[in-house]
């Protein structure tokens, strides 16, 4: 089932950049220093609308740090991040999410003590606009909004394939399902750019296969994807472009086949651990 493209909510900047070719996300000379430790050193790259870009590299290369900087969880020591041309400096993660940049986490992160449906409803937070005083006065539009949000939540559950688990607690789900729930919660936040941090780590091959298909469906909804992944099969299978990070710098960039053959990349991996090719 192909879902209709969702309308852009009114809190987004008016400039819709798909047509003029300006990148959706632009990382400009970003560096992150923790005291004496350099986590990320002067990296720059762009993500264009509609792409699927993978960020790969050995452990400790700085990938999650980059994610944290982009989404406002960490302030860069220098450099800037632009989303649709807009400088994200100083923004807090919830504001970044409000612009359409939503991420998942490397370590599975769900609301364990809430039901799956409630998890999605929380993800839908920004899709509602009811204010506290409206809630307190129990205005009609509050109830209407609640019904609308619940319907959306059910849709998302169907999309991700977790409908039959709707009333179970997030923490009670099997590992693979929890990772799916994570993605569903992120999708609920209505991203235009979805940033997934190792989404299939710990999944078995058939689960990974299923996830790759779902990624395809996510793309059909017009969502751009930036991915951090170790699973090479997945990276090769879904990416349009691959960026390789090693010790805080980008050592290679290009289509997946090229990257696979790049001697520097192979060197970086052989020096640092296994690959899942």
């Amino acid at each position, binding site marked *: 089932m192909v879902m209709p493209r969702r309308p852009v909510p009114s809190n987004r900047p008016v400039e819709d950049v798909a047509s003029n070719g300006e990148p959706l996300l632009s990382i400009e000379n970003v560096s992150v220093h923790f005291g004496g430790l350099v986590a990320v050193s002067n990296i720059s790259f762009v993500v264009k609308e509609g792409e699927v870009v993978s960020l790969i590299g050995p452990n400790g290369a700085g990938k999650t740090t980059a994610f944290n900087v982009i989404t406002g969880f960490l302030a860069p020591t220098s450099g800037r991040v632009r989303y649709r041309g807009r400088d994200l400096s100083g923004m807090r993660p*919830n504001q970044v999410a409000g612009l359409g940049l939503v991420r*998942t986490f490397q370590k599975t*992160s769900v609301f364990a003590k809430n039901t799956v449906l409630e998890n999605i409803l*929380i993800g839908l937070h920004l899709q509602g606009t009811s204010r506290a005083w409206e809630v307190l006065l129990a205005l009609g539009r509050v109830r209407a909004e*609640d019904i609308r949000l619940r319907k959306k939540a059910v849709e998302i559950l169907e999309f991700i394939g977790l409908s039959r688990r709707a009333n179970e607690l997030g923490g009670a789900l099997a590992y693979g399902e929890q990772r799916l729930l994570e993605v569903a919660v992120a999708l*609920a936040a209505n991203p235009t750019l979805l940033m997934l941090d190792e989404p299939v780590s710990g999944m078995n091959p058939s689960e990974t296969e299923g996830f790759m298909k779902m990624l395809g469906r996510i793309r059909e909804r017009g969502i751009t994807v930036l991915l951090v992944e170790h699973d090479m099969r997945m990276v090769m299978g879904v990416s349009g472009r691959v960026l390789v990070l090693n010790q805080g710098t980008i050592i290679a960039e290009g289509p997946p086949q090229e990257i696979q053959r790049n001697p520097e990349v192979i060197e970086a991996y052989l020096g640092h651990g296994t690959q899942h090719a």
Partner: protein
Amino acid sequence: MMARWFGWLWVAFLVSVPLWIKDQYFLHVLIMTGIFTIAAMSLNLLLGYTGQLSLGHVAFFGIGAYTSALVSLGFDLQITNDHVFVFDPKPVWLGVISGIAVAGFFGWVIGKISFKVRGAYFVIVTISFAEVMRLVALNWVDLTQGPMALSSIPPLTLQIPGVWELTFWRKTPNYYLMLFLAVVSFITIRRLVHSRIGRALVALRENETLATSVGVDVTRYLVLAAVVSAAIAGAAGGVYSHYVRIIDPDVFLFIYTVTMVIMVITGGKGTLSGPIVGGLIFGIAPEMLRELAQPEIQWIIYGALMVAIVFFLPDGIVPALGSWWRNHFADPGSRQPPGAAADGDAQAARAVK
């Protein structure tokens, strides 16, 4: 749905109480229990639902009490050597509303601070805040009469000009006032908690990082929870001061915060009916046991009880009952491990639907 019907039945029962309980002392106990329960409910919003370890809650209660009392009594303040600021007494209802407003303001302050100062530090800040308030009340004698207490606080007067007037001298009208405030507070909290905003609060409590990553504004909701929580506590304080009609700085004592905390924790934090259960137990039990044991012994027992609850029923009585009910009576598909329920009422309602 079942929960709601039960709720109204319970309210009807409570409304009828003064009709068949004539013992004035017991009525007094009920009123005080009710006032404290309202404060406990407000604490639950901040502590239970939003997960903020606020141990200075009695400050809001006391601020509401003092503000309302001062507004209705009027006061003079020596600003400079020549100038005296005179505040004329205002009607009691205005006093209570001022109490709510001022308490709410301080709630806003605490909310803002809670964002910057986390975890154990926040606990200390809130306790310190309440202590500072107590010391201010104790030492700013010009305004608050210090340890000599503010007395002769007028009771509430309701009137339809020229037609009808009722002044709340007697216990029965105060009981209904308390009940009215309790129902309003309960409905307020329930509406908030069962909404998108309530979900945001719980999300902040359960997994703040994840919540911010999907757009929940931490500061805004912490402040909101703190303000509403403080305002309700302030209202309880206002009602309190016009009922007992004499207040002194002891109203800010930490022990009262502890009482509220015990009510919330044993009843069930993060549930709507938890504080009520806790409030009833710890409001009425001390009175019942007065004959049997000295206050100190009672408190030792309460302390031990609190430790026991934390060890064995960490979520409190209401969720434990809810789990037990579900595990024994409900459809096997909805069986959950104990301690899993986040909101007993909502779960029960959903199970019945």
